[in-house]
Every structure is written in structure tokens, then in C-alpha cells.
């Protein structure tokens, strides 16, 4: 099953639309609640990053019998040093983002904790792509 969503820069009101839709789908497919939580938390973190740090982008989700693959691709400033960005506590979040309750530098490390496979690729001035995979069993 394939699903696609668009996320828009600065659109915090709709941040999480893709993740909540995926949550509903996985529940209907009877995926265990623990796995649903890992999937939607990681996807939500990536979605919020595309809205907060980039100029929006697309979320594409593929659900197979044994796993889910999620790709969040944005057009944005890119991440100059991915290893640094992956460190807990590193954040360049703007005040508006902090006002929304984000910007602790915990998102990328939290994605890493929740998924079975994480791949972040980025080109400065072009954008960032976050690919994640979670196995159902």
C-alpha cells in the first residue's frame, strides 16, 4: 500500500497529518500498538523537521506485509554536518519552533531509537531526505 502527503513550511497546525493518517491505517491492519507508536513517533519527528527546518516537502509511505518504509524528502537548506545534527541536544530551531514545544535537539536521535533502519542524506542548499524502515515482527 502506497500513500503520499505534502507538508508545507511553517504549517504547524497541520504538522502530524501524515503521521496520524498512518496511525489509523496501521491500527486497521492490526499492527501491534508498540510498533505503531514507534512508527508514528519517528514519522512525526521527521514531518515536524521538514516543517520547522526546511521549506516543506513530501512524505511517502509504503506498507508491506512485514514492514513499513517512510521517506520524508524536503526542499530546504540541507544539513551541513549530519553527524552533528544526530547528536542529542544539537538544535538550530528558531524561536517560533521553540514556541510550538519543539527544538530540543532530540528528534533525530529519537528517530534512530524508534526505527530499524534510518538513512539521512542531505545536500546543502538543496534539501534533506530521511528514509526510515520499521519491521512489523
Amino acid at each position, binding site marked *: 500500500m502506497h500513500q503520499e502527503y505534502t507538508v508545507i513550511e511553517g504549517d*504547524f*497546525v497541520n*504538522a*502530524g497529518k501524515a*503521521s*496520524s493518517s498512518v*496511525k489509523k491505517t496501521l491500527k486497521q491492519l492490526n499492527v501491534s*500498538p508498540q510498533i505503531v*507508536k514507534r512508527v*508514528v*513517533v519517528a514519522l*512525526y*519527528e521527521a514531518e515536524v523537521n521538514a516543517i520547522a527546518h526546511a521549506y516543506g516537502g513530501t512524505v511517502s509511505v509504503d506498507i508491506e506485509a512485514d514492514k513499513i518504509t517512510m521517506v520524508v524528502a524536503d526542499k530546504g537548506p540541507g544539513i551541513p554536518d549530519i553527524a552533528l545534527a544526530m547528536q542529542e541536544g544539537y538544535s538550530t530551531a528558531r524561536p517560533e519552533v521553540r514556541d*510550538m*514545544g*519543539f*527544538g*530540543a*535537539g*532530540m*528528534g533525530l536521535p*529519537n528517530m534512530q*531509537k524508534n526505527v530499524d533502519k534510518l538513512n539521512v542524506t542531505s545536500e546543502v542548499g538543496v534539501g534533506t531526505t530521511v528514509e526510515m524502515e520499521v519491521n512489523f515482527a
Partner: protein
Amino acid sequence: MTLKEIAEMLNAEVCVGEERLSEEVSTAFASDLMSDVLTLKDTPILVTGLCNVQTIRTCDMAGLDVVIIVRNKKPSEEMLELAEENDMMVMASPFSLFKACGILYAAGMKPLY
């Protein structure tokens, strides 16, 4: 303790989820930082001063379904609709975060960590 007891102790108005008042809860977490809520291993009730749509959305994603908003902040229609859609309970208390947590702790609510 029950959510009804909590609402009474905190002088809180139940905004949505009235039907859940008889439910028992035992652990609580307090934060204004949604980044932090997303890292929780369990699903305690949340006491928070952050009153926006992201508060509700984050709790939904993290599986938390009871949100207590402190300091007399009034949740928006949009927040309450989203909460209702996801079977969550939202209460609003006039107390400060510190006072609300102190009362709950003294009454025996357990911290998550």
C-alpha cells in the same frame, strides 16, 4: 486515582472526555517540551503549560490520552476537536504547573522516571 478525583483536586474544567472520568490512572509526566513527550516509553497523563494544537497532536502520536493544561489557558476549538476525534480527555486547571504537580504528587500519583 480516578480522573474525576484529579479534576476535583486541580479545580479543573473537563473540556472533552467527560465520559472517561471514572477511569483510574497512576502515573503522570509534566513538560512544556513536546520533543520530550515524544521520547516517553510509557503513556502517563500529561500536565503541561503548552496550549496549542501540537500539544494534542504530539500526545496522540505518543499515545498519551489525558492532557491537563494549567495556568488558566483555554484550549482552542481546534484542539478540542482533534482531542475528541482521538478519544482523548482534556482538562484545564487554573493552577500553575508547579502547584498542579505538587498536588498530584502528594495525592500519590507516580512519576514516570
